[in-house]
């Protein structure tokens, strides 16, 4: 068994993967809202990121600041191999659960 991932944690990890080199707070929040329709308070966002970091699923390094940020650094995230494994595991669980019932949930065409 891998590490259990909550739904929001999955969304966060997927967003970081998708954003690649540009995965820092502002972009993560923006992408979550645009793609998943999730508006998230910054308090919840950063504490969740901290939690994923504590579990060893995310790592970050400091990136350069810009004038809009008054020169303050950015946290550039990347998903660790453990994180990728956890995502894979979660997707596997979902796939197994979906198998054989797609026709029940397909939208009528």
């Amino acid at each position, binding site marked *: 068994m891998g590490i259990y991932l909550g739904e929001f944690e999955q969304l966060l990890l997927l967003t970081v993967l998708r954003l690649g080199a540009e995965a*820092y707070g*502002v972009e993560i929040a923006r992408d979550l809202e645009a793609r998943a329709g999730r508006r998230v308070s910054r*308090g919840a966002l950063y504490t969740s990121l901290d939690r994923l970091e504590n579990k060893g699923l995310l790592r970050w390094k*400091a990136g350069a600041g810009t004038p*809009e*940020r008054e020169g*303050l*650094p*950015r*946290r550039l995230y990347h998903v660790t191999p453990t994180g990728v494994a956890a995502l894979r595991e979660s997707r596997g669980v979902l796939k197994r659960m979906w198998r054989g019932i797609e026709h029940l949930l397909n939208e009528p065409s």
Partner: protein
Amino acid sequence: MIAPRLANRLLRRVLPEGTRGETIRGDLLEEFHARPSRWWFWRQTLSLVVRYGMRRESPAAARSDSMFETIWNDVRYAARSYAKTPTFTLAVLTTLALGIGASTAIFSMVNAILLQPLPLNEPDRLVYANEVNAKLVRISTSWLNYRDWRQRARSFEHLALTRDEPEALSAVERPQRLRGRRVTGNFFQAVGVRPALGRALADDDDRPGAPLMAVITDGFWRAQFGADPSVVGRTLILNERPATVVGILPRGFEYLRPYDLFVSMGPIADSPGLNQRGNHNGFYAVGRLRSGVSVESADRELRDIAAQLEREHPDTNTNISVRAEPLADRLVADVRPTLFALLGAVGFLLSDLCVNVANLLIARGAARQHELAVRAALGGGRRRLVSQLLVESTFVSLLGGGLGVAVASWLLRALIAVAPEGTPRLTSVAIDSTALVFALVASTICGLVFGAFPALLASGVQGQHALIRGRASGFAAGSHRLRRGLMVAETALALILLAGAGLMIRTLQQLAGVETGFRPDHLMTAQFALSGPRWTTERQRAFRDELLTKARAVPGVARAALTFALPIDGSQWNSIFIVSGKPIPDRAHLPSSAFTPVSDGYFEAVGMRLIRGRTIDARDDATTPRVAVVNESFAREMWPGEDPIGKRLKQGWPEDDNAWIEVVGLIADVKFNGISAETPMQVYLPLNQVAMREMAVVVRTAADPATVMPTLETIVHDLDKDLPLFARRTMDQIIESSMAQSRLSMTVFVVFALVALTLAAVGLYGVVAHGVTERTHEIGVRMALGADPVDVLRLIVGQGLVTVVAGLAVGIAGALALSRTIESLLFGVKPTDPTTFAAVIVLLLGVGLAACGVPAWRASRVDPTAALRAE
């Protein structure tokens, strides 16, 4: 736009130090740059403060131990566990909602009426002053004395004179009676208000002969004129005289009671009645103190001036002095004792509530001791357990408080509906923010107080010790002792409230049983005023005669009459007088009596008993000798042991050239100034000899008295279309309203007492039943060893009753100690009335017996073998 500085500083404090925190702030600034919304920035800041701020308090603790999350978890846990025991939760919530609701409602009344400052500019500097006679009884203020005060006193910025003066508004679609006040020109400066439109009154408007000016209130302006600003300068017909509207007061201005308008002194300033120094015409003074001057020193100065006036005008001012006091005190003087007694009752009810809920929670704690022991054994620290229990109790009490506010708003409406007529400031009574804060604080304190008992007990739980489900664990024994102690307190509180309720019930019984001296049933009354120049003496007389003739002809009307003052409703005219054939006492000791002009048939209509002589006749008028009927109190006081018929009296000062009046009848006493006051000396005069402009029509009917009102209105309207009838009441209503204050107190006390009694009964039952359950094993042993069921019954009931009796003793001591506080509310019964106390004690013993009896009976039916097997 620059990001909020305060938010930024807050973030710098709460976010982790170093790069970790800087990145978050950087992100926020970047987003703010793209979307400059301070609201958004603040919201995100708060979410970060909540998430990170709480965590920093205990950096060593693990993440889930942050205070915020702990409390949140506790609340969720509490909600779940309360949801699992719905009956218990319902009991606690009902108790709390009732208690906090009742307290909040009463508090709102007390707060609005007694505690809130008057809604006037700097109300602390407003002073009420009027004259007092030799016995220090308040009498109203003489116009000429006031003018001297105003000239000589240095304590006041403004010293105004004012009196209630209803005005009949005519020459409009619907003539009506307005709530008016006559004021001197400086009145508005004194109370500190400027008109929103037009001008206020000025000193010039006090000048003798100045035309009548009116300043109208915002409410009247809107209701009567649809807020039309062109009303300023318009003429109104008030009491048949033209008055010019000069100003409109700002919205929200209220002087003591709702008024429609204020009118100027000028037209009456040189009237002969006002310009006799010995006349006190219903005025009192209201003054604004100079800053730095105390009420006491103003009072002293006015008294000194009164002493000077006494030397200057010995014939009118002998023994006349002044009293000045804060306006706010004067306004609420009548209702203060009632409201404070009710507030006291609230205090007892709230204490009772805390005790009761504590009791319930301890019972629950006893049932949960295993759970608590498990948690303690698994490493739940003592502080952790205690804080969880406190969170639980506070959570439920806040919930109860919330329900209580709903109860309070409903209760408050009921209280306002039954509040005595004329209760000051009733319009401002509402569940306002102060009341909400009260409810919140009361709930929180309740939660902490009643949560503290079970929490203290729980903190004593020894982990592994309580894990073994032993019979006599420390918790159970301790909780049982504590619960018995709480029951003593609860019984005592119930006794105090019951005693209060009992005394109020007795008071009301006494009031209802008062011999009024007349037949109050089937009497309808309404008032009218024949004021204005067109009402000449002849026209007044013609109107009275026609009204009586027509009213008497109405089917269903047995009798009809007119009077200047109604029984119970109180005297409208008190005067000094002298009697013939007796030495005239010195001026300070002249006797005073109520004088009441009435029409023929008045005594018969009201149902008063003639003792000797004759009643007032229609033929007693200006062409016949002056006559009077006196009451028993008058005869007893003035001519003890003598026949008053044929004796003579003269109203007014000895040297006045008023006519001598011959007594032609002696009438039995009736209750006159309210239902509880002693009947004063009374002189009844014929209206046809002493015409009054204001009077009441009294009609005795065969059927429901209210049904003749429309007919009466039509008669009056046909006689004069501009004459409003007002104060339409049945005599039963008048009596009812004179008892309203006592009824209000009684209602509150009885409701509180019943709640307390129920709580005590349920609590006692719970404690005894719990004790029986705990001792099932012991009882089984006793019975196996040959104890009779009756012995068991006696044992259990006896122990329960010991608690009750202890509570009664404490309660009686408390009630006796408090008896002084309730004394002023009582009538015809002493605060230590033995009958009331005996009844209350018997009631509580009976309830106690029943509450102990049921579980005791169950205990006596215990099957010994089953009980011995019981754990």
